[in-house]
């Protein structure tokens, strides 16, 4: 998206030239096809490295936590919602930030694109007008962007940054509110089926913690899995410990997860990590009428209460 890239560079150039920020965090071209990669620009002459395309999949809010400098972030919808939560949790101050907001058209699921090519290696990608041209040794194929968006992008209801200091593209069309159909579908299965599915997914987990490390809201100095006194959860690939890791990480993100999908995208083994987070997103909305990351004024659901909170789940013989 060359126009967006230009506007991002313009904004970054101006900010650095006027010494309004010390650092611009954005994306630059990756070293292999289908990848764009986080980029840290501190000098005006490096501004032209910044780009915007369908592969800017990382959540850059991750790189803001506890920074002392003034930072500009090139944030798409979900990144900015994570920023809102980080501000509320005092991990960065609003005054330090300059938000270059990018209304997002969704990011392309590179693994699904690769799978479609069925083993043929993609050596070059070019993007125009909603289509991706994939070239390799002896082949060239065109695929539609829309068809290959990440699942979280397909259910995203906040493509437009909720706060920003400048917007570098026209507003993106927002989908209707999230009806959490995927969660309802899973809930409709039997308990046994759900356990089966999750056991199978967790059996793929290699405890690399990429999911946790990619998540902007996972910023604890010492994560619960690293504790040894007390040891909350074993560190091996034992099935029970792996399940507990995912369950408790999801629970620690209850009311804090912005459903950006960074966890799922980081996972090398394709574990369906968001399955648990989605359930909590739905419950938090249904029970406490709260959607994460929409406003600096909304208090996180587990930091507050209402005397009349629903308690139908309780045992009352």
């Amino acid at each position, binding site marked *: 998206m060359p126009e967006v890239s230009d506007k991002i560079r313009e904004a970054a150039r101006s900010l650095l030239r006027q010494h309004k920020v010390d650092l611009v965090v954005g994306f630059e071209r990756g070293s292999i096809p289908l990848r764009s990669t986080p980029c840290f620009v501190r000098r005006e002459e490096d501004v032209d490295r910044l780009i915007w395309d369908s592969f800017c999949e990382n959540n850059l809010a991750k790189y803001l936590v506890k920074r002392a400098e003034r930072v500009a972030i090139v944030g798409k919808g979900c990144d900015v919602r994570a920023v809102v939560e980080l501000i509320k949790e005092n991990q960065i101050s609003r005054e330090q930030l300059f938000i270059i907001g990018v209304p997002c058209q969704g990011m392309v699921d590179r693994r699904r694109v690769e799978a479609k090519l069925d083993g043929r290696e993609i050596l070059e990608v070019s993007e125009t007008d909603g289509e991706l041209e994939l070239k390799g040794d002896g082949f060239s194929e065109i695929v539609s962007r829309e068809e290959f968006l990440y699942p979280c992008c397909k259910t995203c209801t906040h493509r437009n940054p909720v706060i920003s200091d400048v917007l570098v593209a026209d507003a993106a069309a927002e989908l209707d509110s999230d009806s959490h159909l995927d969660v309802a579908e899973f809930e409709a299965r039997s308990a046994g089926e759900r356990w089966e599915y999750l056991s199978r997914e967790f059996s793929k987990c290699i405890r690399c913690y990429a999911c946790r490390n990619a998540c902007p809201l996972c910023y604890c100095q010492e994560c619960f899995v690293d504790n040894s006194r007390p040891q909350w959860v074993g560190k091996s690939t034992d099935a029970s410990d792996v399940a507990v890791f995912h369950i408790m990480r999801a629970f620690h993100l209850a009311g804090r997860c912005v459903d950006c999908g960074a966890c799922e995208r980081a996972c090398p083994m394709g574990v369906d990590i968001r399955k648990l987070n989605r359930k909590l997103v739905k*419950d938090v909305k249904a029970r406490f009428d709260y959607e994460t990351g929409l406003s600096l004024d909304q208090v996180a659901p587990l930091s507050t209460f209402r005397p009349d909170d*629903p308690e139908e789940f309780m045992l009352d013989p």
Partner: protein
Amino acid sequence: MMVGSKDWKPKILAFLCNWCSYAGADLAGTSRIQYPANVRVIRVPCSGRLNPFFIIAALQHGIDGVLVCGCHPGECHYLSGNYNARRKFALLKGLLEYIGLEEDRVQFSWVSAAEGVRFAKVIAVATEKIKALGPAERLVKKPA
């Protein structure tokens, strides 16, 4: 104990808040009210103190059911501990059921210091439900 063995007795852990439910349990005892003896009690200062990990760790190590009791809303000794707990447990219970853990294994209830009868009833109901489910298997950590 083997699944379905007639001699199997459920192991149930009850986290009781010091000011209300633990006192309620005490009252049940001094009133000589009978209730199933499968429950092991752990006293906590407030239901809000309960780290969800306690429940998860219990399930991992073969506890068949967990019960958490606190003061009725509005009566918390620390004013709002039980309100926070209520939100936490609502989400935790939903999540545990969602992953396939049987609905009745983890229960939450309000019991006040004056409710000896109610405490016994809560225990009895919870025990029945857990007994019906059989020994806990999902999430149990098995030796390598």
